[in-house]
């Protein structure tokens, strides 16, 4: 029973990582940049949703839509102002700019919403208390159930989007070969903007789900999950949508199991240790493509 409880907790945490990692992976796939500001977009999404429900009195789902809209706009603005001027100059310059954006978002949030942590009201609070099984021996929260379902749903939708729709195919083309895609008449700029828009909308969802399950909301809330999700994306093979999903879930489960069965003091060491071992065996992550080098 304890094992089941831990497994469910791990799946729940892992699915939040998975949704964040999806955003990371999409942006990486198309622009080959590590968008370290992604975690902070999550935080902004959570704050917007919080403001929607607490200050404007909106229903939970409206506030989520609002958060998605704001984050989408934010993603497009960040890409256009901070990343586009540096496109094609190598990923390191953009990486540092992304860090600048991350500092900016954190400190802007600090000025706007103050330093006091806020408690996020779960968007599932209307569902009643958690599900109790086996006479209370096993409890599953609605957050856990929905986070997992939403993560799977998003993964399916994203896979369909990238394989079925024109825009999705354009994204894959750009991520495959930017120059060739341009020659084929694909508007690379708008495709990349679109990717950031989708990635940021996903970040808003992730923010809401993250804070529904773990309700403390601060300007630094997104930082650590961001790093973990980045780890997850690499773990699963960065650039791969199912890989991000798998990586996220595995990192979550390993983290919780590591704490439960090995040592709470060294739980991060265990997560990162597993990551290192996996990468040494499979250097491009679990589902990553094998890169062949051209001479």
């Amino acid at each position: 029973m304890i094992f089941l409880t831990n497994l469910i907790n791990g799946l729940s945490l892992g699915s939040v990582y998975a949704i964040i990692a999806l955003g990371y992976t999409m942006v990486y796939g198309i622009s080959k940049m590590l968008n370290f500001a992604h975690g902070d977009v999550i935080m902004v999404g959570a704050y917007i949703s919080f403001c929607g429900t607490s200050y404007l009195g909106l229903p939970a789902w409206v506030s989520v839509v609002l958060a998605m809209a704001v984050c989408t706009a934010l993603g497009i603005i960040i890409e256009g102002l901070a990343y586009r001027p540096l496109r094609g100059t190598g990923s390191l310059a953009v990486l540092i700019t992304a860090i600048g954006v991350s500092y900016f978002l954190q400190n802007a949030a600090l000025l706007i919403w103050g330093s006091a942590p806020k408690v996020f009201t779960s968007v599932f609070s209307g569902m009643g208390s958690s599900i109790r099984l086996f006479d209370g021996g096993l409890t599953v929260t609605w957050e856990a159930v929905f986070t997992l379902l939403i993560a799977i749903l998003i993964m399916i939708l994203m896979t369909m989007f990238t394989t079925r729709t024109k825009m999705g195919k354009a994204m894959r083309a750009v991520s495959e070969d930017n120059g060739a895609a341009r020659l084929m008449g694909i508007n690379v700029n708008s495709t990349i903007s679109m990717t950031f828009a989708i990635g940021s909308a996903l970040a808003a969802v992730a923010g809401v789900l993250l804070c529904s399950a773990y309700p403390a909301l601060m300007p630094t809330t997104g930082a650590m999950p961001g790093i973990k999700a980045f780890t997850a994306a690499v773990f699963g093979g960065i650039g791969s949508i199912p890989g991000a999903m798998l990586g996220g879930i595995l990192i979550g489960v390993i983290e919780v199991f590591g704490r439960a069965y090995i040592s709470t003091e060294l739980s991060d060491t265990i997560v990162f240790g597993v990551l290192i071992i996996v990468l040494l065996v499979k250097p491009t992550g679990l589902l990553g493509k094998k890169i062949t080098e051209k001479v």
Partner: protein
Amino acid sequence: MKKEFMKKFAVVMLSLVMVFAMAACGGSSGGSSDSGSESAEAVLYVGATGPLTGGASFYGNAVKQGAMIAAEEINASETEFRIEFRMEDDEADGEKAVNAYHVLQDWGVQVVLGSVTTGSCVAVAGETFEDRVFEITPSASSSDVTNGKDNVFQVCFTDPNQGKTAANTILELYPDAKVAAIYNNSDPYSTGIFNAFKAEMEANGKELVEAATYPDDTNADYSAQLTACKSAGADVVLLPIYYTPASVILKQAADMGYEPTFFGLDGLDGILDMEGFDTSLAEGVMLMTPFNPWSDDAKVAEFVKKYQDAYGELPNQFAADGYDTMYVIYETFKAAGCTTDMSNEEICDAMVAAITGGFSYDGVTGEGMTWSTDGTVSKDPVVVVIKDGQYQDR
């Protein structure tokens, strides 16, 4: 190559200019603020460092606001001199705290109020000890803060003292309970209390059934720790942590239907004022705090009212500590017979002698506080229980 060179050369020149400009500004700013004050009245420069940005900024801002209220009150009644209070951001980081302290030195700081967090405070205390500047911290509770430094004092009780009191209280209230703890193993405050707590419990022949840790206050998930405590059958869970992670722990425990008695320390103070927090989750939680904003004590009520008028929120223990610390500085300064034109070293020696020589202070965080030569304060932690969204005596 050449064009690059010229551009980089320009960067070098610009940056050198900046550095020297800063050196020059810094050098003169101490003087300018002296002459800048219009009247000829004497000014006592009280400087503080604390986190005003970053994850711990909430504590820094609370201390700042509390201290500012005290400074205003003092300035309204004191006729001989005026207190000028300035707080610099240290991001709860030792290196930045030392930088901030040096900025305060350039400003002409005479007494240091701070730092707010332990790591910063130990770093700054190392500097003030060498520079002979009187320092008193509202909230840095590690014994490393005062250890070996005669010029550094604490207004809060020390971590080992808290851990010990927590152990004794639990042993007294729940002699047969199984006790567990969840703490942040990368935080000096949390680990300091936990280690003292554990030692005291074991000295009384009681082993903890579970001691779970987490690495960071921004950590999201505590379910594994709670599951471990639950399966170990713990009836009392010690939370020597700050209230932000505690709010998540309380929610997760409620979600999993685990209802032990949670026992917090002063770090838990403030949990009830968190925006959006469901206070029913904290019902029955015990905590040790020196400050109860719902107390009917006249002094406390007045402070709470002023604070609410000024900032629109209830003061927490950090704000109260900041308020008291400013008063302790003021009254010690007066009791020592210091004047604002004395050197820092003279002020320091006089204030150290005064504060350890029978000085006593009644504040909002305790009555009859006195200080020993090792820098610690004599006040007893009060254990309260949360009932109906308020602290009540148990």
